[in-house]
């Protein structure tokens, strides 16, 4: 079969000593960056681009790819240990992962993340190998209307994400949507809410908001109860997941992988949306949904699988069509161009060793990652035992540097402080940051796609229902809302009864 031939070509390319070494370097660096909060694969790859000039193209891409999906592994580490998402997509992992850490189950959480990620990465690589070109075609069928409907579905997921009051979840989502609008409006070029500050012209970075609200906010929260705080120091339970844990993680990992793989292909949404979606679906579907937000293992398994699967499948548009689905892919394209390779549909035919070599190396990389990460869990968990008053300044330092490195501007550090205050205030008022973050990501995208869809259909709002994929997605959203509100309505009834 042709596929076996292709894979053979790939193995030949990927299994040279040189490429194995570069693969390892890539995933190792990636994990490191993922662990260090704030510093993301985009900045790192940008910094390492010059080095890739001197490397053969296959090796360069293998290394850069390793950095990218490796960072998804590492990002969950700090998310679980100290509630600081190392990677944007790890925000969701903080919800249950950190809670598990507080209960002394950090090791289990980390192991779950590693296992889930490995499985997802492997499956995603297989998907790419078999289905890359047709999947890319499907990605192309998504126009503005389809994306808008997808975002609507995502918003409904945001409401499902809420732990506490539905009203506040809604409020936070809307606030997030508004904050996301700060910056330049794509459709008209107008600057909105920027107060004449050019640094706001491209909006606020997601990482800044996440670091501020989750990271700094959490530090202040912890200092609040410092005297009475029962830090995990005392009881670290086993590092290994129990039978029960493993049994519970299987289904979420499968679902997360599926959701993440699909959403990763769509340019623009990427692994973040996949993680959020997987979490929401899991919460609805799981019989342990009451535990979500308090340390449910499914709440770690699903998003971690999703974001890793998404990281791999997001290579598809890049490798098959030469279109970047996110800034990291744009960098890879840049690296290819500098090497003299024109990214695009011709790459599969003209450079099969490049294409298949990268794909096979992804699988090898995932293997390296799980071998690297599992033993390190013991080390990471020790970090949690460091006395908090010594740990949090370090967290602050990494967050500040990380945030600075996004755009090389200290303005982002100032924003970090601001969001720290906001994060703390909202936490005191029982308003969840997670829905706000999702609204923040979705807001500008929703508006962009809504307006573009209407532009393309020349003002006809029926376009959302006339196009089949879009209609299907909207129907799912409606169904999801109904399902979400059903228990809420009956819950309200119970509340009323109780008060009387």
């Amino acid at each position, binding site marked *: 079969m042709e596929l076996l031939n292709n894979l053979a070509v790939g193995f030949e390319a990927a299994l040279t000593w040189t490429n194995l070494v570069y693969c390892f370097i890539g995933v190792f660096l990636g994990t490191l960056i993922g662990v260090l909060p704030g510093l993301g694969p985009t900045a790192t*790859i940008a910094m390492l681009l010059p080095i890739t000039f001197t490397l053969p193209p296959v090796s360069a891409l293998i290394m850069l790819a390793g950095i990218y999906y490796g960072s998804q592994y590492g990002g969950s580490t700090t998310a679980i240990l100290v509630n600081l998402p190392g990677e944007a997509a790890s925000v969701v992992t903080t919800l249950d992962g950190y809670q598990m850490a507080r209960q002394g189950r950090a090791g289990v959480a980390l192991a779950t993340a590693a296992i889930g990620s490995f499985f997802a990465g492997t499956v995603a690589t297989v998907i790419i190998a078999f289905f890359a070109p047709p999947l890319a075609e499907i990605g192309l069928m998504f126009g503005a209307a389809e994306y808008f409907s997808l975002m609507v579905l995502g918003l409904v997921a945001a409401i499902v994400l809420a732990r506490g009051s539905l009203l506040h979840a809604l409020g936070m989502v809307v606030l997030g949507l508004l904050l996301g609008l700060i910056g330049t409006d794509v459709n008209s070029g107008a600057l909105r809410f920027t107060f004449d500050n050019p640094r706001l012209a491209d909006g606020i970075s997601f990482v800044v908001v996440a670091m501020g609200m989750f990271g700094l906010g959490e530090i202040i929260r912890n200092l609040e109860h410092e005297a009475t705080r029962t830090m995990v120091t005392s009881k670290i339970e086993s590092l290994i997941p129990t039978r029960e844990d493993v049994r519970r993680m299987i289904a979420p990992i499968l679902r997360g992988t599926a959701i993440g793989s699909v959403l990763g292909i769509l340019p623009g949404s990427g692994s973040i949306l996949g993680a959020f979606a997987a979490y929401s679906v899991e919460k609805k579907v799981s019989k342990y949904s009451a535990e979500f937000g308090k340390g449910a293992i499914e709440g770690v398994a699903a998003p971690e699988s999703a974001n890793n699967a998404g990281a791999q499948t997001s290579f598809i548009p890049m490798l098959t069509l030469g279109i970047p689905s996110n800034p990291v892919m744009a960098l890879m394209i840049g690296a290819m161009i500098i090497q003299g390779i024109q990214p695009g549909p011709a790459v599969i035919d003209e450079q099969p060793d490049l294409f298949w070599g990268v794909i096979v190396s992804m699988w090898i990389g995932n293997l390296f990652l799980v071998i690297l990460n599992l033993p390190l869990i013991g080390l990471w968990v020790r970090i949690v035992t460091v006395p908090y008053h010594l740990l949090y300044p370090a967290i602050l330092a990494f967050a500040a540097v990380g945030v600075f490195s996004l755009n090389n501007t200290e303005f982002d550090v100032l924003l970090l402080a601001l969001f720290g205050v906001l994060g703390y205030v909202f936490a005191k008022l029982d308003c969840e940051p997670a829905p706000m973050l999702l609204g923040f990501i979705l807001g500008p995208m929703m508006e962009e796609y809504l307006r573009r869809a209407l532009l393309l259909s020349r003002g006809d709002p029926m376009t959302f229902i006339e196009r089949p994929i879009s209609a299907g997605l909207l129907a799912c959203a409606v169904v999801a809302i109904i399902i979400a509100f059903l228990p809420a309505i009956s819950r309200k009834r119970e509340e009323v009864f109780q008060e009387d």
Partner: protein
Amino acid sequence: MKLKFRNLAIAAATVLGAAMANPAIHAANYPTKPITMLVPFSAGGPTDTVARLLAQAMGADLGQQVIVENVAGAGGTLAPERLTRSAPDGYTILIHHIGMSTAPTLYRKLRYNPLEDFEHIGLINEVPMTIVARKDFPPNTLTELVEYVKANKDKVTYANAGIGAASHLCGLLFMSTVGVQVTTVPYKGTGPAMNDLLGGQVDFMCDQTTNTTSQIKGGKIKVYAITTGNRVSSLPDVPTTKEAGLPELEVSVWHGLYAPKGTPKEIVERLSKSLQVALKDPTVIERFGDLGTEPIAQERATPQAHRDFLKAEIDKWAPIIKAAGTYAD
């Protein structure tokens, strides 16, 4: 022995220190440390690619590393602003493209003047744009395109990479040359725009050869013409707009090198020389060729030629942008 050495060391340090303090000698020894090249867009894009190729070659000639620093944002206006605040000592330079000439008109609150606030080092290259369309779009030649657009102006959609982007400007020029207004659909960058073009969601657009060549060769999109005076070696079968009947539609994404105002003349000259050497470098020529561009003629890689060209471009685009009435702020 030790004492003698120590005296010698002190003497040497003093002389060196005095020498460093003397600006004339400073310029003569330039460069003594790495130089930073600011890039106004994020890494991986066409300007960034050109910058990195250039940095490599210039660094070899200058004997000091030229480090690329991406200062993306505000449509490419953040980096020039940074340059105005940098020391005019030749250790910070900026690469920019056609956006430098359109910024003063597009941004009514712009905080710098491209002609007065910078030293101009020289032009680098010109990347032609290609007029492309989705695979199933009815017209097959430029003439057919113009007719089709005129006949269906309410149905046709044109994509661009955002207000102020080269594709936006090309679109404005197209519409003013042909005399028809079509629905313009802005995107956040050429990636998403190309995506929708490939998917058939939008009808046609202009984009740099860097981004379109492989799609054209792969047969995924149609191409009508190249918007510069000469055909490009990477796309030998594509006619120029002049050949295809629309000679006024000439757009090229040109790149230029800038230094802060007040940088000593000798240093600017040195950089200009280095630029010219880099443009003769075979690797640069080859890579530029892959991108569909070639290094600019040596006599245009000079400060005066650069400044004159910049002024000409500013004057060329101002009326077109003002006629369209869309600004970036």
